[in-house]
């Protein structure tokens, strides 16, 4: 069993597991942090951005002023943003049989894999994962296509040139493999390959392996996966949460007894407590509004935003923000809000109970009904006429490189009254803000990452007791910035097997058994005999049939009666054809009992001679020798086949057959 690691990003994993005869891709995460190297895509012409100076190397030898722009000491690529894809050279991706998706954040690279590698398999995901994943992809495509950029910068990628660039561009890896965003057509085609699954549904893959998603508690429809055969079990743990937010709680017990547990998607903010961050978010928001400023919340259009809105629902009245408009701007804002209300099966118990009443599970329905929360597909259209300040705007993309958020950064960045509050943990806020410097706006960083922290995960692992743990190498050492915090890493016995991008791991697995089914007819013909108390054995002679990786044993068909032929005489002399080898024998032949048995069969003249290892019985009348030893019996008998057969059967009476 092998694991191929195609992504080095611990929360946006992409691994391929070869297990028995199947090749299974686990998640298909797209590393979008690469876009931080690019200049933002403004929705309306931005004089500031267009006036940024081009970059020329200090000695003037390299002039890339068309491709690279300088802003506040950092250099950015002026081109449509590009993403860092999972590794495509490590193995032939067309051989992948299935892709298992754990949550909607971990499927964003799907079109690159399913559309351009010869992939012909099936993708498995839950319904919320598919629907919300589709919204996020649609949004991404929309953000890109709304502001087409004619220029596609490539010169800077030249190895010789990239070496000369200032950091962090200089250190960006595999820039040649970076790709532009896919099209809607590719998204649709990729998603048409998705087959929906429900939690705890058992999906058979080619009869060899069974996969099953389990609730992971992180987001709507998010799952961990069990990949197992009758005798081996691999657990794949991706983004999971033990906090009580909106999704169904995590199913931990089903992870027990794994041979290997692949652990990814731990919190990216191990030191930030989500509840504390939520409190800080609310108080900063209220403070800014009271001072007459606007609040910008760069966010994804599904996920934590539901919790933020729910928190605000309770907070608005007490903080006296009843009249402040809340705007949610995204091409998929409406869909995201609507979809969140129809997945009762996938929600936590409290929310499910509301649906039984019947009431919408999320309170943002009420915020919309009372006009406190308004949603718009973009800043153009209705929004521009209905827009009132001061206000709170939720919009994407959290990288601040594209989407409506770029507009608000340009609009509000110059005033210190306004605040931008970062809640998404995927991007470093300082890097995100870099192309907007200098900035007067206040910046607050309250990353909310509900995924498992190291404390929770060690507790979990203690409970589920996997034999081996595989995880990204980042989890096996403390974070670079906090090298003394040994509590911010995994410490396990045996130590976890670390992986990085392009690793190929041999998983420590010894398959020893396989399931086979004995057909009823054969089962009925078996004759068990007890060899020890509670242990019986039966010899089995059967025909093995293997079909679709399922093995059955059936009785040996009786040889068809030989057709009467002219050479009837010859037939008698034919050697035995289907010879069943005789079973192995075990035990010993006790002398006294054996002699008694011989006597019963009329063999009375027996001379017994003791030897070093046992006895030699001389059957004098028959001129036959039987050598009896602890671990063997030797019958020497000349020219008397009937006698030999009798003696054989008498000896066999005392032995066990295996």
């Amino acid at each position, binding site marked *: 069993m092998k694991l191929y690691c195609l992504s080095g990003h611990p929360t946006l994993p992409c691994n391929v597991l070869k297990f028995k005869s199947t090749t299974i891709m686990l998640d298909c995460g797209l590393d979008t942090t690469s876009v931080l190297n690019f200049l933002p895509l403004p929705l309306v012409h931005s004089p500031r951005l267009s006036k940024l100076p081009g970059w020329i190397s200090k000695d003037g030898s390299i002039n890339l002023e068309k491709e690279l722009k300088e802003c506040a000491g950092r250099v950015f690529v002026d081109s449509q943003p590009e993403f860092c894809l999972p590794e495509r050279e490590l193995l032939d991706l067309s051989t992948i049989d299935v892709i298992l998706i754990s949550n909607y954040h971990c499927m964003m690279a799907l079109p690159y894999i399913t559309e351009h590698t010869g992939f012909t398999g099936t993708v498995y995901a839950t319904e919320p994962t598919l629907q919300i994943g589709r919204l996020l992809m649609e949004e991404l495509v929309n953000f890109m296509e709304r502001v087409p950029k004619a220029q596609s910068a490539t010169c800077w990628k030249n190895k010789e040139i990239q070496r000369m660039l200032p950091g962090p561009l200089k250190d960006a890896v595999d820039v040649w493999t970076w790709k532009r965003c896919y099209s809607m057509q590719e998204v649709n085609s990729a998603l048409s390959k998705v087959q929906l699954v429900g939690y705890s549904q058992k999906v058979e893959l080619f009869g060899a392996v069974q996969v099953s998603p389990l609730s992971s508690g992180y987001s709507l429809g998010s799952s961990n996966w069990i990949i197992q055969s009758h005798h081996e079990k691999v657990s794949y743990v991706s983004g999971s949460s033990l906090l009580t937010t909106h999704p169904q709680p995590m199913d931990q017990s089903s992870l027990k007894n794994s041979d290997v547990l692949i652990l990814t998607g731990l919190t990216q903010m191990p030191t930030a407590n989500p509840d504390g961050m939520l409190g800080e978010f609310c108080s900063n928001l209220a403070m800014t509004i009271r001072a007459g400023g606007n609040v910008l919340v760069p966010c994804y259009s599904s996920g934590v935003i539901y919790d933020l809105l729910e928190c605000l629902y309770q907070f608005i009245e007490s903080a006296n923000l009843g009249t402040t408009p809340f705007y949610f701007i995204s091409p998929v804002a409406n869909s995201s809000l609507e979809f969140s209300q129809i997945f009762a099966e996938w929600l936590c118990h409290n929310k499910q109970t509301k649906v039984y009443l019947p009431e919408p599970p999320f309170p943002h329905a009420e915020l919309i009904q009372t006009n406190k929360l308004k949603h718009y597909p973009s800043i153009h259209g209705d929004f521009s006429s209905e827009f009132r300040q001061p206000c709170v705007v939720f919009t994407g993309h959290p990288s601040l490189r594209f989407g409506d958020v770029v507009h608000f950064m340009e609009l509000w960045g110059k005033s210190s009254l306004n605040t931008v509050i970062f809640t998404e943990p995927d991007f470093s806020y300082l890097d995100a803000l870099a192309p907007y410097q200098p900035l007067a706006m206040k910046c607050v960083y309250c990353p909310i990452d509900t995924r498992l922290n190291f404390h929770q995960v060690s507790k979990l692992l203690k409970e589920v007791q996997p034999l081996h743990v595989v995880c990204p190498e980042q989890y096996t050492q403390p974070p670079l910035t906090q090298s003394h915090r040994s509590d911010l890493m995994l410490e396990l016995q045996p130590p976890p097997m670390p992986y990085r991008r392009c690793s190929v791991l041999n998983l420590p697995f010894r398959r020893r058994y396989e399931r086979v089914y004995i057909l009823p007819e054969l089962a009925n013909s078996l004759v068990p005999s007890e060899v020890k108390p509670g242990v019986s054995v*039966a010899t089995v002679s059967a025909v093995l049939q293997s079909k679709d990786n399922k093995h059955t044993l059936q009785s040996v068909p009786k040889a068809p009666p030989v057709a009467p032929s002219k050479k009837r005489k010859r037939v008698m002399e034919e050697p035995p054809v289907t010879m069943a080898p005789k079973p192995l024998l075990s035990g010993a032949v006790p002398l006294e009992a054996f002699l008694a048995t011989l006597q019963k069969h009329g063999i009375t003249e027996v001379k017994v001679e003791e030897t070093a290892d046992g006895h030699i019985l001389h059957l004098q009348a028959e001129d036959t020798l039987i050598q009896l030893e602890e671990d063997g019996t030797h019958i020497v008998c000349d020219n008397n086949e009937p006698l030999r057969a009798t003696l054989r059967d008498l000896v066999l009476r005392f032995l066990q057959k295996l």
Partner: protein
Amino acid sequence: MPEIKVTPLGAGQDVGRSCILVSIGGKNIMLDCGMHMGYNDDRRFPDFSYITQNGRLTDFLDCVIISHFHLDHCGALPYMSEMVGYDGPIYMTHPTKAICPILLEDFRKITVDKKGETNFFTSQMIKDCMKKVIPLNLHQTVQVDDELEIKAYYAGHVLGAAMVHIKVGSESVVYTGDYNMTPDRHLGAAWIDKCRPDILISESTYATTIRDSKRCRERDFLKKVHETIERGGKVLIPVFALGRAQELCILLETFWERMNLKAPIYFSTGLTEKANHYYKLFITWTNQKIRKTFVQRNMFEFKHIKAFDRSYADNPGPMVVFATPGMLHAGQSLQIFKKWAGNDKNMVIMPGYCVQGTIGHKILNGQRKLEMEGRSTLDVKLQVEYMSFSAHADAKGIMQLIRMAEPRNMLLVHGEAAKMEFLKGKIEQEFSIDCYMPANGETTAVTTNPSVPVDISLNLLKREMVLGGPLPDPKKPRTMHGTLIMKENSLKLVSSEQALKELGLNEHQLRFTCRVQLQDPHSDSDTLHRIYTHLKSVLKDYTIQHLPDGTVMVESIVIKVSSSAEDANAKVLLLSWSYQDEDLGSYLSSLLKKGLPT
């Protein structure tokens, strides 16, 4: 031989009071727990004393599964769990769990408040009963205990309706509940995978009907409504609050919009709005089209359909009223019916099945004079129309489901005996499988023949697969040999050598040595060589070696030659073999006794 037993307590050769007991692999399961609309006495509920005469049912049932929220499938549930007594798990889908208590409460109100019955379950009992419910998701495999697992499939029929696959070891049963094999205006079609159950228990309401296309029926329905409205008549459509009602509402709503009609459409109970809310929140359970467009336009927000007030019934002019319940056996639909029955301009359209004993059933059978309570009679002058909108599979649909699931046996419930008989014949003819149709209280036992799962050592399996080649040769099957070790609950199949090792046993070698006298005027080594050539020609498929140390080996049988001291031509062959080669050894000794060919 293991067997599966099925006993209907209700719905055996009957429609109504669905309640079927299944015993499989030592587990007892109750499928549905319904009431009968045609009775007001004891026969209303299944006879639970069949399960146990006294005491609670918990000890006798491993779980109860409810297929959907119609009262003939869940109406007896609070009585069973709270009054007879059952504390085990009750499974139903989320929508069923949401809607079922509302219908039960409705049922209770009509029975207790209107008819004044005592000794009936209370509101609190409904609540307590619902606390025992565990929600089921589609396709989720739920482990009821270590051995019993159940899985729900989409059944169409009504919101949240499910078929269930019940499995213990390698034995399994599928119960369809009520299902629909064609998508309608708001629900999708039932679907199941090729799960090959030992028994498929199917409803058979429309066992003999093959319905024309849905479009025609819809057109017919709209035409009749339209004509009645045009001549100033009133249309009464008795429905159950959830299900058909929503489908017909969608139908009328779009028709009204297209034709720009002004006559009012009303929905009788306060349930409408609430009911529509359920549809909105459980939109994932509706059909694909509604699911796809719900963000832009929610099909369950009606513009033309308004809430009904009882005073409207006397308003002049045309109108369409949806009223509950659907079989005209009580409540508002019956009240309106009484008011409108006398006018031949009016029309009642029965869009679903009516069980025997209900007024709906009577008027559909052409009865024109009805005896009402208090000895009064009611003349029925209005037009009575029947439109089969109820979403049950017809004969074609039932056959289609059999083809999908490939059951080994078929068992029909929820239908009329005569119709079942007909379908049974058809099924047995077309699929060559046994089809049963037990009456209530009658047990059908089906013997199953499960294969025995065993763990085979991978070494043995791989060795066998390599030797056997990739494709089995049907003419020359390879025989595999191994030892099955049975210890506690585990069954392991290993090679005999491994079995000895695992069990800590010593091998006991049994050997035979046989001397054969032969006259052969050659030197010893020539004789040996002649033996070699002889055996070579007789034993084609065996490995025969002539070894340099003066022996011939056939497989592992050793043959040596020596000549007697007196007569150089009298040879003594020494054959030695182990018990494992007994057949060949015995054959060789008798073969060589016959001498060598000259």
